[in-house]
């Protein structure tokens, strides 16, 4: 029951998070900005529009949106969002989660190649490069967290970390947080790695890859991207600032978890909006330097654990 509530919250709430970030960004830039609910309207519009499919494509192109949304829906099942008790299916640990994201990226990159345009191929190649270079940071950050928590199971991890009162004074914990935050930017295609609202094909990464999609296929992919962002933020919030998330299935605990989640997501959303307003997009070949930097942060987090234990 609680699992279903949580899952629906992720799936239905994800576009709202996107709307919130866009609105905040607009206000920071002195614009009025679109309504908070605009992403839902966009999705509704896309769902009822006709689909245009390139003649050169194969079934991979039509199958990909389903795999992408499927991977995200399964990922949404295993992340504890409101409560760690009964809140997530025990399908696997945090490593599985990363592989589910990689599965979605794998198919998107194939679909990018399928239409036979240079833009799609360019997007695929760049997206895979960024994903591959982000992978070591992700795993080392996971290693750093698992050292402190003694487990890689998501719910157990959060439970153990929530028991540590001095968690935020711990240099390793903070380093791991910043490294994973940078990776989140890369994995979800945000500035300074990729610009989600760009209209110039040559600078696109993620958007170039999905350039050929339209109608309900595009809706699925956009929705999946929103869910991915939502899940990354939830992970950052619940692992690094684990307080507030429910530890039982009591309605009160779940409600408190919801409030805590909203606060965490809002904080992360505002910081992302501030960041995206204040930095410019990096040149593609400067991105590896950024990711190497985040890798070093994660490695320092691991080193600090071993030398302070």
């Amino acid at each position, binding site marked *: 029951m609680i699992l279903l509530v949580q899952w629906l919250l992720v799936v239905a709430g994800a576009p709202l998070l996107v709307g919130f970030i866009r609105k905040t960004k607009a206000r920071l830039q002195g614009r009025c900005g679109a309504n908070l609910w605009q992403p839902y309207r966009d999705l509704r519009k896309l769902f009822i529009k006709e689909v245009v499919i390139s003649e050169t494509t194969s079934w991979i192109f039509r199958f990909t949106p389903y795999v992408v949304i499927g991977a995200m829906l*399964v990922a949404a099942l295993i992340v504890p969002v409101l409560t760690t008790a009964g809140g997530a299916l025990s399908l696997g640990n945090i490593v599985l989660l990363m592989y589910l994201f990689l599965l979605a990226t794998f198919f998107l990159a194939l679909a990018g190649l*399928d239409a036979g345009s240079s833009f799609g191929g360019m997007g695929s190649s760049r997206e895979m490069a960024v994903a591959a270079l982000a*992978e070591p940071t992700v795993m080392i950050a996971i290693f750093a967290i698992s050292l402190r928590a003694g487990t890689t199971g998501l719910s157990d991890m959060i439970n153990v970390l929530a028991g540590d009162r001095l968690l935020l004074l711990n240099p390793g914990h903070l380093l791991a947080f910043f490294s994973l935050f940078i990776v989140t930017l890369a994995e979800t295609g945000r500035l300074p790695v990729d610009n989600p609202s760009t209209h110039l094909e040559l600078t696109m990464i993620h958007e170039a890859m999905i350039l050929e999609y339209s109608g309900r296929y595009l809706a699925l992919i956009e929705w999946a991207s929103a869910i991915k962002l939502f899940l990354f933020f939830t992970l950052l919030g619940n692992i690094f600032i684990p307080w507030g998330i429910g530890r039982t299935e009591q309605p009160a605990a779940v409600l408190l978890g919801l409030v805590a989640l909203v606060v965490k997501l809002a904080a992360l959303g505002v910081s992302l909006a501030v960041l995206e307003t204040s930095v410019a997009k990096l040149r593609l070949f400067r991105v590896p330097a950024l990711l190497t930097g985040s890798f070093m942060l994660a490695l320092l987090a691991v080193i600090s654990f071993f030398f302070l234990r």
Partner: protein
Amino acid sequence: MANRISLWLTVPLAVLVLVGGAAGLSGWSFDVVLPHVLPIGGGVALGLDRLSAFFLVIIAAGVLPCAVFAFAYTRHQKPERDGMTAALAAGMSLFIVSMACLVLARNVLTFLVFWEAMSLASYFLIMTENDRSETRRAGWLYAVMTHAGLACILLGFLTMAQSSGSLSMTAWAQAAAAIDPSKRNVAFVLVAAGFLSKAGAIPFHIWLPRAHPAAPSHISAVMSAVMIKLGVYGLVRIGFEWLGVGPRWWGVLILLIGAVSAVAGVLYAIIDSDLKRLLAYSTVENVGVILLGIGAGLIFHSYDLDSLAALSVAAALLHCLNHTIFKALLFLGAGAIVHATGTRNIEEMGGLLRRMPQTGALFLIGSLAISAMPPLNGFVSEWLTFQALLLSFRVPEQFVNLVFAIAIAALALTAGLAAACFVRAFGITFLAMPRSECVKQAHEVPWTMRLSMGVLAVLAAVLGIAPVVALRPLGYVTAQLLGEQPDLAFSLSGVVAGGSFAAIAPGWVGLTLAVVIFAVWLGFRLTGGSLRKRYYDTWGCGRAVHSPNLEYTAAAFANPFKRVFAFLYRPVTAIEIWPHGESRLFVKTIKYRHESRSIIEEGIYAPLAAAIRRTSARIRAVQSGNVHSYLLYMFLVLVVLLLVAK
């Protein structure tokens, strides 16, 4: 025709190997010594235990589909090459028998005889298409590398035989603790070098990317999927059994070689546009992943963390089996593509998924499995390897902890790059539009080819969804090897590693994924069935014609990786421009050349070969061609021998 019947011989042989393996895994064992055969070395000694049995299963799993594939490969052989078919069948049979007997060998002589038989059989199989100079060069390099490896193994074995006083490996294992550690170290380094050269780990990998493309595809499949693993088998034997418990640096060395092989292997694979060479480099990568597990196991073993060691070795051995399955599938897929198009260059391919839908789907399954995508088999073994490495925090030494951190990063980078590599391999080959005429006319391959690939694809799915099928026997294998069950709990649906450290239910992941995807699809069918779907040109900035020239190429796809990892590739770029006679502003032709160089070949092998050539030139002065001086040499040698042997 009669020659084609000889191909049937390989099938029952492979089945026999499979039966032996299955019997061994269910607990049956034997030890026989035939003292009258090869009497100088203590006779032929064969034995079956669980580790041998597991490798018998690997051999059979790789060989059987390839034997079936061989029928279609030889069907279109020209009549004058009919004798070649029989030779191929004979070579293949010798290859199977020698590999199977190798894992059963229990003394030095038996081991070396079958090791050499295996090397020679594979050498002749590589040379099947020896009318091409490329093949002859590849065969030569393979012969040199495999014999250099044999020399190392021989020296290491002799060191052990001399210090333990026995030619039987079981005797070594018992005597190991009493042997001088420096001698054991020398033996380990030598023998490991020999095994790693067969396994294709960096820096001994140089023969793989040449030999695999040169051999017929089903032979490359057997070599890459099966023979390579026997190097791993040897390493497991010496690391955990024959040489006793070693010092810590053995494991650290293997772990580092594994990390380098994994990352560099996949980096070479990602820029290659020869499909079979790409797969060969990806084998180097996967051997690296296997070595990470074995290295971790050796380190844990040296700290007496035996259940963790068992977990690491089980992960490595599972990856051996999984790699056998998906690499055989991919090589056979490559063989099918070469069969249909006549080219190995992926720059000329494209659009094959529409022309060869079934081969394409099977190749996609192989690509997903090798990229460790859930819920296929590669994911499970890579996941287990990750957990083994993550559990390394139980080792109470900071330096070793940091080595493991590097290994984790290397494995993660490998995983990401492998996914990119196979997006490129599958995407450029099978998607979009054909880039050349021969690919445009390609059509689906004979059913025997598809059958052999299909069986492998099913195995990849089964081992991904229910890894318990392989993990339960592997538990007993490691129990026999290390005296302890791995730190694993598994049921039909899930695997738990390291107590409560990590859990996964790959079967449920697959099922949930399938249900969710089906539900979304069904939802669309029910609600949006009336919505229009329109097929139209790819959007191209208002361009009128959409031609294959506008597609992204394999080289372009690899370019970000080339730039980021330029320190490894050391690329050479040359642009030559010829203008028209009238004005230099009008360009007639542009020639662009971009090549990457191999650090290892230029840094290690080229100087080595040059040194050998110089030395042999100097020694050649002795060989003057003058009979009188030869007689003098004989006389001198006789005198020296008489003096020494006095």
